């Protein structure tokens, strides 16, 4: 039995897909926002691996193939964006202003808290690109002299957290416009937030896709301007 698991490439994929399916089912069943399918799936897989004493490397040998589809999936974000292009053209200002506010807000909030925690320069610049998509964020962190592996960790934590708390935040702050939801998800939580936005609707998904690209590129410009402040 163990040999099969150790040699199988499908084991990791099966566990991931199974855990995610269960997460979707649980969410439908309970309708609780905290039971986010992605969070449930991650927790389930972690529990499964530790109960059966399987190494992360063993699991990831197969599961990593799932991540390889991320690049073509990102390309396909152009599809909802294309379908909503007319809508987007009518709201160019709202799109540009809100994403710019988000990118600036990210830099300011990280600066203030880095001061509060008295972080050294290297950790401050490590965190600066945390809201943008991994591939851009890694480049920005490296350029600014940050620790790239830590940047990746904070990017993933940001995405998963954003994906989980979005419903709840939108309720509390009465953010009801589909477009505003999409822009907020993509700007704050990049592609993982966009996965959530696509669940909410096509306008949300389209705006979030656009925000990944725009916020990512804006951050490339902003980080060098503020990285010397600490």
């Amino acid at each position, binding site marked *: 039995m163990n040999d099969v698991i150790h040699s199988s490439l499908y084991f990791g994929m099966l566990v*991931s897909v199974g855990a*995610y399916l269960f997460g979707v089912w649980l969410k439908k069943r309970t309708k609780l926002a905290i039971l986010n*399918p*992605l969070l449930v*799936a*991650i927790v389930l897989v972690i529990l499964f*691996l530790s109960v059966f004493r399987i190494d*992360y490397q063993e699991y*990831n040998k197969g*599961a990593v193939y799932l991540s390889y*589809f*991320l*690049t*073509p*999936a*990102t*390309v*396909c*974000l*152009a*599809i909802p*964006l*294309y379908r909503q292009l007319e809508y987007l053209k009518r*709201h160019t200002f*709202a*799109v540009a*202003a*809100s994403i710019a506010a*988000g990118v600036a*807000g990210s830099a300011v909030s990280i600066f203030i808290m*880095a001061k509060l*925690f008295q*972080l050294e320069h290297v950790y401050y610049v490590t965190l600066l690109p*945390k809201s943008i998509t991994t*591939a851009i964020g890694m480049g920005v962190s490296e*350029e600014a002299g940050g620790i790239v*592996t830590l940047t990746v*960790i904070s990017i*993933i*934590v*940001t995405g*998963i957290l954003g994906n989980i708390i979005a419903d709840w935040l939108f309720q509390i*702050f009465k953010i*009801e*416009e589909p*477009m*505003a939801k999409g*822009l*907020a998800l993509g700007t*704050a939580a990049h*592609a*993982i937030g*966009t*996965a*959530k936005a*696509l669940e909410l609707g096509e306008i949300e998904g389209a705006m979030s896709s656009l*925000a*990944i*690209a725009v916020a990512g590129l804006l951050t*490339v410009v902003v980080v060098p301007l503020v990285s010397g402040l600490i």
Partner: protein
Amino acid sequence: MKYLKETAIIFGITMAGEFLNYLLPFPVPAGVYGLFILLTLLSVGIIKVEEVSSVGDFLLDTMPLMFIPAGVGLLDSTGEAGEILVPLVVITAVSTVFVMVLTGEVAQRIIRGAQKKEAEHE
């Protein structure tokens, strides 16, 4: 055949994105280049949305799955954060909430302001 053709188009554009990523000196990932290539091809009409949408919608539908391996791996890498772990998590969490609310609020105010103006004109 339909799925085969769609897959070929999507993989082709993905590769073109990788090519740009390799050629150009900007820290833009292959996927984002590919996104703009596909958007341009769709807008110009070289590719019709029906020619990529079955496989495309499948990939978008299963996108959350693709983040599970990285999420599970987080536990393995918490050691790397060491003593910085607590401030890192706190700063990440607070700033994520702040950015999401700020972006959403700004967008919603502008959209609703524009709608009000339109309503007054009519």
